[in-house]
């Protein structure tokens, strides 16, 4: 089966500066893939490129068998931005009612929409806050409203940008259980994080740094070599730096010889 996301030689330029440089990777279907790396390494840009909201993307980027950003994909991908994007002056349920009406419009779908809204509110554990204004909720609760919007219509691909930031450990565990339940139903998840201890909860990991992919492997394979994902990451960074330095030295030497 073709992967959910296939990238080859993928580059993005923002403000005249390359943010992603020639990435190539696959995100397998029906799994939770973690996108790990320090903040500022290009995770959000990569996610926006996959969702189709990023401008100046070059190279190959196929999502669910279509070029990223194709109109056919708009109802098949759920995307959660880092900052919750919901209407603060609407209640949780009113927010979801509106986005559900955009995804599945028409009066004939009203009953289906009502069920779907009730389901996603329960999945993010906000049933008791369904009639509270989104602006009156805590940060963690608002980001769960944003997540609930992305769960509407059960999309085939969920792209989640740091969905667990600022949540307490119990809530974080519950959310990861939900992600796995969604993957078990056949959907694909791409979850970014800058916390390395979330790595072991993923089926597969993409380690990113400075707009490049350092590793693309399972958490077990990565930690086997160095003991943990974090030390594997550090090892890979050192290796990459050493490589870059070696390149610099050879260039310098060549320049020296040329003189």
């Amino acid at each position, binding site marked *: 089966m073709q992967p959910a996301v296939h990238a080859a030689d993928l580059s993005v330029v923002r403000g005249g500066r390359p943010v992603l440089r020639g990435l190539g990777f696959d995100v397998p279907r029906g799994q939770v893939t973690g996108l790990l790396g320090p903040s500022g390494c290009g995770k959000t840009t990569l996610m926006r490129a996959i969702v189709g909201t990023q*401008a100046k993307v070059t190279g190959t980027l196929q999502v669910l068998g279509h070029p990223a950003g194709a109109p056919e994909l708009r109802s098949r991908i759920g995307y959660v931005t880092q900052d919750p994007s919901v209407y603060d002056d609407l209640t949780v349920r009113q927010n979801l009612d509106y986005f559900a009406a955009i995804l599945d419009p028409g009066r004939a779908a009203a009953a289906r929409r009502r069920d779907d809204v009730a*389901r996603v509110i329960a999945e993010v554990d906000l049933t008791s806050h369904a009639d509270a204004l989104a602006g009156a909720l805590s940060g963690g609760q608002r980001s769960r409203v944003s997540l609930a919007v992305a769960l509407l219509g059960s999309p085939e691909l969920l792209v989640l940008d740091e969905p667990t930031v600022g949540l307490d450990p119990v809530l974080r565990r519950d959310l990861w259980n939900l992600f796995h339940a969604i993957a078990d139903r056949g959907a694909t998840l791409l979850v970014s994080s800058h916390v390395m201890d979330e790595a072991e909860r993923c089926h597969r990991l993409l380690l990113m740094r400075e707009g490049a992919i350092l590793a693309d492997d399972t958490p077990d394979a990565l930690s086997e070599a160095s003991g943990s994902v974090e030390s594997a990451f550090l090892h890979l960074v050192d290796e990459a730096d050493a490589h870059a330095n070696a390149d610099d030295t050879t260039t310098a030497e060549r320049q020296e010889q040329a003189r």
Partner: protein
Amino acid sequence: MTPSAETAPPGPGPGPAPGPANPSARARAFSASRTIATTARVLRQLRHDPRSIALMLFVPCVMLLLLRYVFDGSQRTFDAIGASLLGIFPLITMFLVTSIATLRERTSGTLERLLAMPLGKADLILGYALAFGLLAVVQSALATGLALWALGLDVIGSPWLLLLVALLDALLGTALGLFVSAFAASEFQAVQFMPAVIFPQLLLCGLFAARDTMHPVLEAISDVLPMSYAVDGMNEVLAHTDITADFVRDVLVVAACALLVLALGAATLRRRTP
């Protein structure tokens, strides 16, 4: 999250079957139900903000009341200025409301979210125009009713024509606000656009001095500004019993400007941003 999510896929939810979850979810250029859903959402947001509604509806009325007694000694001046203001109030209010509302939509990330969903740009823009248009109808009806029946504004033509011009002005204000919000990075800047976009039109529209008595350069500029036609249309209704050719021209110019600026506003909505 809830135990049920782990143990059993929740009952009626249509699991993540391959292929589009529902065929109607495909993006079209325009969908009536998505437009209406957007209108309903904008009105619902307003309902949580009764103070804004009250300000929008009653400030124009208070201004007219004030004006009536400022010109207590000269009913004719009140007639001329009052009729012009009936056209200008909806334009200014809707400009402000729309520019701030769409700016908030841009900065809160909801616009990006909507444009990543199967929502047509026309759905969003018409949804906003419809919601604020409805509000403008109520505002204009209140202001016109007050001016005609309580304050004795002497209008020879039909009050319905006044309402029509007011509605088109409101649409123009909505369109301008939508367009301008694309160039404002913050609410602060958006408010500053009001003096920049509205005040020159206010000065040149014939409210302070008849347009044909202005310097020829200014007169030429006022000929291409839409508010001049809005005010002119109001004055036509004030002075003539039936629909004049000038009135038809005024209405057409304002409507065409509103549509043109709405289209420009749609062009500023980008699905892909840097």
